[in-house]
């Protein structure tokens, strides 16, 4: 039995088009409403088929708006699908919702949701345990145990708002550990954290939760290095669809033979990237800003023959009046894999 299986799971949302900011827009909106044109439908999750094994640390990678959070909410049964279904720990999310709920925990990216500011960390955990039908004799020991696992033993009696973001995120993980559900859904668990706190939470997820405790973890992220460092397998999502799903190594192998030339320079941007992408043997080129104050940028050029194309690139860059600081030829990263499959960067 798989931890998670989805079968053509689909979710559509109606987006309101009503604008009431001026008399003109109000009249336009009312006309659209009368013609039943007031809402546009967007497909947030589009016929997703996935299989996630028990004990796996599985990553859903994609830019903001790719449908990752919607997919997680569907699997947590907070949302109902429009088409298809899923099985979580063997329970159908539509027909066996109550059973499915006892198998899952959700850790969200917003570390202030789902706890009460006026209660201590320990009281918050007790409240959560009570909501999940936990018998009181098991309360105390399990709370102590969960707090110890996440390194918050000393913080049991303090109010959550006195904790740092990283500690609050760990409190949320402790809450999920209380009822030891076999599956953890983590929606961008490090997105609000500073680099140190994020590294600690990542290490905890991988070393403690997944490797030591054997929990199945489904983690969404838009951070390439996070997905690469944590996940055994990654599904790349874009526009609600799973574009590709494999191990990070295999994903990179799918780009075998492709090289990436990175040019760090001042006064370099999308215009230069577009010009370079028109050169022979250049597959694509993209630009990113590195330091807006200093006017520094980075252009990444994907090619199958860097030796041939490099002189042409440097010539074109020179003609554009760009001051090159550093050029390197590197192996493709997960970001390149993402661009390869979707045609756009994760920051898009």
């Amino acid at each position, binding site marked *: 039995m798989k931890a998670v299986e989805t079968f053509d799971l689909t979710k559509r949302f109606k987006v309101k088009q009503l604008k009431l900011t001026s008399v003109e827009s109000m009249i336009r909106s009312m006309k659209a409403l009368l013609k039943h044109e007031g809402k546009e439908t967007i497909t947030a999750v589009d016929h997703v088929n996935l299989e996630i094994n028990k004990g796996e640390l599985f990553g859903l990678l994609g830019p903001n708006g790719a449908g990752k959070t*919607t997919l997680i909410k569907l699997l947590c049964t907070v949302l109902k699908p429009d088409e298809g279904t899923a099985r979580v720990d063997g329970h159908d999310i539509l027909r066996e919702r109550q059973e499915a*709920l006892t198998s899952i925990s959700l850790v969200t990216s917003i570390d*202030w949701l789902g706890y009460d500011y*006026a209660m201590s960390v320990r009281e918050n955990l007790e409240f959560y345990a009570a*909501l*999940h039908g936990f018998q009181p004799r098991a309360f105390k020991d399990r709370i102590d145990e969960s707090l110890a696992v996440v390194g918050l033993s000393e913080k049991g009696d303090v109010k959550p708002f006195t904790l740092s973001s990283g500690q609050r995120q760990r409190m949320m993980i402790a809450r999920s550990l209380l009822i030891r559900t076999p599956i953890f859904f983590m929606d961008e668990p490090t997105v609000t954290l500073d680099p140190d706190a994020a590294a600690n939470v990542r290490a905890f997820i991988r070393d403690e939760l997944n490797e030591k405790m054997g929990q199945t973890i489904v983690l969404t992220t838009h951070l390439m290095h996070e997905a690469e460092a944590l996940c055994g397998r990654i599904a790349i999502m874009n526009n609600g669809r799973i574009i590709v799903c494999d191990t990070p190594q295999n994903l990179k192998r799918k780009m075998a033979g492709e090289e990436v030339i990175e040019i760090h320079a001042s006064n370099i941007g999308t215009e230069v990237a577009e010009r370079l992408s028109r050169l022979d043997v250049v597959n694509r080129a993209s630009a990113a800003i590195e330091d807006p104050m200093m006017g520094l940028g980075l252009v990444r050029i994907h090619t199958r023959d860097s030796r041939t194309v490099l002189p042409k690139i440097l010539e074109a860059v020179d003609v554009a009046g760009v001051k090159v600081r550093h050029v390197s030829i590197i192996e493709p990263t997960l970001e390149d894999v993402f661009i390869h499959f979707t045609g756009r960067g994760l920051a898009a």
Partner: protein
Amino acid sequence: MTKREVEELRFDLSSYLRATKMLLRKELTAMTFFSTSFLIGIMSTIANIALFYYLASFVGAYATPYLGEFGGSYAAFMIVGIVLNSFLTVALTSTYSAMCNGYFEGNLEFYMLSPIGIWVYVGSRALFEYVMATINVMLYFFIGIVVFGVAFNINILTAIVVILVSMVAVTGLGLIGASLFSLIEAKGYTNPVQWIVGLLVGLVSGVYFPISILPSWLRGISSLLPQTYALEAARLAFLKSIPLSDITVIYDITVLVAFSIVLVPIGIWLFKKGLERDQREGTLSLWT
């Protein structure tokens, strides 16, 4: 989960009660967390009671001729009106305000993740508000009787039955109002049912004055509200010690039961439909 761990998770009556107890504790902690606001709330209640009493003393002489069937004291008449209306306002508004609070706090989805969460949450919030209303009511009676010497002549059994039956009937209206949180996206602390019923209750159901002074067309509207029957029966119970066997009380209770039979199932059905709609549309959370 191991077999032992599964055995530790049960959703029986004791689970509901334990979760309710925790939610009540949570509400109480939150209420007393900002102690200045808490104290100001208590002082406002006491000031309101004094205000109502002096207002009642002022208009009492003019009102007495209209209050013969309720014992003649306007202060006692008004205290019973305010007391019962406190409970019925909780019945009308608590489910809806619980949904709004949960929505803006970002906790509704969190409660949906628990097999018993959303119903325990809504029920506990209502229970907490009833406890607060009871404390309020006791203050009204205590200050009215001890400080201002207002006299009551109570039939306890009739009073309890009338309060309970009327709370059930108005809860039906409250659930219908709460369903609009989801069904028409009325998520901003005001829904049409609560607004119109609240408005009409103050105007025509007899909270502050006897409905006999109203023109007949307004009395017609008052007959459509369960609060009208509840207030009449409650005043007979609190001010004239009328027993349950009295024909007027029997009539009022029968009408309230009829309201309950119609409104409560409709309210539960609509509220469930609303939750399903929120799950379908993804509108249970303001935060993503």
